[in-house]
């Protein structure tokens, strides 16, 4: 069953000129801008010399790097995630949903017929609803928890709010029943593409580098991979390990 009722099928061949321009030109232009901006950003980063390690290794750098990348998929390795599984689930779901939303932005113009299948629409609508829900939870966390408010900048709120709105827009866009819905979805997608290199969303571009250097550093010193997993138990403040 579709999660949201369609008003009627959207005919892609009869889109208005603004929507056509946005979907087929501006969006891809924004994408090209984003790619260019990131290339410049990464070039700037690579201009900075890395720390040159002149000591003989105590551990294995390659294993360290592999471990550093894999910790994303083995959440129990981090105490912060062992103690709070919900934060990991939230984190994983949000990023997967964003990837789906982004994927849909690229595939919709070229594969809109395939994406009309009711089960696809329904599955994606539930996915985007979950993502938007997590976005709202995260916004609420940021607004209500003192320690989160203390570290949040306007950029943090703006990025989260925009992404959340974008996921809501995805719910409408995937149903392909309204040109307005499609327009809003691509407007937000374009805005995100252009804003992304200037915002904290840039973290995704830094992630491979930072984990690489972290894994290399800790692998070299024999800290990574962890030698022994901590025994299950309770920390002094009573939290689960």
């Amino acid at each position, binding site marked *: 069953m579709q999660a949201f009722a369609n008003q009627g099928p959207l005919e892609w061949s009869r889109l208005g000129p603004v929507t056509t321009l946005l979907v087929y030109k501006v969006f891809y232009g924004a994408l090209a801008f984003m790619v260019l901006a990131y290339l410049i950003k990464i070039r700037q980063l690579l201009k900075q010399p890395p*720390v040159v390690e002149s000591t003989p290794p105590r551990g294995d750098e390659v294993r360290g790097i592999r471990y550093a990348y894999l*910790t994303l998929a083995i959440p129990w390795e981090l105490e912060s995630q062992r103690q709070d599984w919900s934060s990991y689930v939230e984190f994983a779901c949000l990023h997967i949903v964003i990837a789906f939303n982004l994927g849909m932005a690229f595939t919709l113009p070229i594969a809109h017929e395939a994406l009309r299948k009711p089960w696809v629409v329904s599955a994606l609508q539930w996915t985007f609803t979950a993502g938007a829900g997590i976005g709202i939870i995260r916004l609420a966390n940021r607004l209500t928890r003192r*320690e989160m408010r203390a570290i949040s900048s306007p950029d943090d709120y703006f990025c989260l709010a925009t992404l959340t709105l974008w996921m809501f827009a995805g719910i409408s866009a995937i149903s392909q029943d309204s040109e307005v819905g499609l327009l809003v979805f691509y407007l937000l997608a374009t805005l995100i593409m252009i804003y992304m290199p200037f915002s904290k969303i840039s973290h995704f571009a830094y992630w491979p580098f930072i984990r690489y250097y972290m894994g290399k550093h800790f692998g070299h010193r*024999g800290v990574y991979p962890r*030698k022994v997993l901590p025994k299950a138990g309770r*920390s*002094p403040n009573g939290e689960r390990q």
Partner: protein
Amino acid sequence: MMHPIRSEKAQKAVGTFEKAIATREAVLALAACVHCGLCADSCHYYLATGNPKMTPVFKADRVRRLYKYHADWLGRLVPEWVGGGTLSSDQDLEDLKDVVFGSCTMCRRCTINCRFGIDNALIIRTARRLLTAHGIAPEGLLSVMRDQREVGNQMGISKADYLETIEWLEKEAQADLGLDFRVPIDKEGAEIVYVINPREVQYTPMTLLAAFKIFHLAGADWTMPSVGWDNSNFGLFSGDNDLGAHMARLAFDQARKLGVKKVVVSDCGHGYRTMKWESPNWTKARALPFEIESLLETMVDYVHQGRILLDPSKNPHSVTYHDPCNLSRSAGITEEPRFLLTRACLEFREMYPNRVDNYCCTGGGGGMAMAEYASRRLAVAQIKADQIRASGAAVVATACPDCVDGLTDLINRYKVHIPVKNVVEIVAKACVTPAEKTKRGMRPIPAELKGRRILVVDDEPDVVRYLSIFLADQGFLVSSARDGRGALAAVRQERPDLITLNITMPENSGVEVFMTLRRDPQTQGIPVFIISSAVDFRKLMYYREVRPPEGYMGKPIEPNVLLMTIRRLLEIKH
């Protein structure tokens, strides 16, 4: 965007910041944080207080705001939007100093537990670098840095005093190990050169004696250097890479000159980390002609090779191990101490969490040298105290003098009542010695020391009574005072050869008594042995407005250590 008018110091600090972030790792640490807040629960400052300004990310953001303001694309246009800001006034610098020195021990627990791996310790060290470059740092830290640069060691011990103390310790060790025992100084071609933490010379010679015993029993071909012997390096805590390189060169040059195969670093967390991992990079030494290893690794080898035999029944109490941050999270040393303790003690108990997840002792990052933050340090130490208490162990072992001091302070504060020992002391105690059958024990008080005058100053009648009787039994002439005024009067009247002083007394406090004695040319030469559990002692030790006390001991009093220290202070003429 209009740039603010800056004070001279702020202008210089900003200039330094731009140079300080010239590595890829530093840029990544500053640029990649998403403010997810996951690191909050990794930090003992936050866990203990719940103060939102104590989360690692908030503290790192005090530095990151500079990056956003000066280097971020959007931050350069609208800094407030991305949380950017700059340093404008001297007060801004003082505020930053309070954060980076007073509320972070650079323990890297948050780094290990960050999904990204943001190295907040690197960020904090970067800020420390820009502040210390302009003389903005806690006085104790600046004193230590000055002494390392000018004298070559963190306690400012002269070469003559160091060599005299080693010679005295050699005699002490002979009482236990036999008259053939020698501490070889500058022996060329030795396999090992042993570098130590200066506090071992000044305040905790028991750890040196323990190491001597192990080298002796293992039949090691070893030596101690006459220069470049300080393994500690405040270049790490101050962010000053030049100081780091200077200290490293002192040790490396001497090791090269002696032609040793190994530099063995005594139980010291940051000492090992800097010597092994940071110093070769600071000095840009491509290939050192010797290995660098921790005494823990050396002892493990000796056990494996059967060169020392351990009898766990000599340590019958249950022992737990506190992983020093610099050894576990920054140097990969977690299993060696466990290997040793499980063989040297009847019962070893883990504390949880442990290894790379262990909580900081609260005294790291140079914290012991920053007396102005002592109350904050101890206020956030509850979590560590609870962790130790939960282990149920009777002794806490560790492998770092800063951890020993930090843990001792918090154990006193939270009344955990568990002694803290260095791993080397426990291992040395467990060693089976050939001389055991004819063991002579501690060296007796020499005849020439009998009749020397000792003034005991303490407001606790029980302590005065105990010390008076104990020292009188050893042949000393003992007098006592219960408060500061009485102490000063007694010093002027009796001219004692040594004073034992409690620094927390009513009326004229012990600290004031100490300062008065040191400032008076008539009394400044009298050695003062502090017997107190108060953290105020650290201020006397590190601030160095006057010469630091010659000895220190916490309560409860350990008679053997007391006697050994008193003998040392009376026998060595500093």
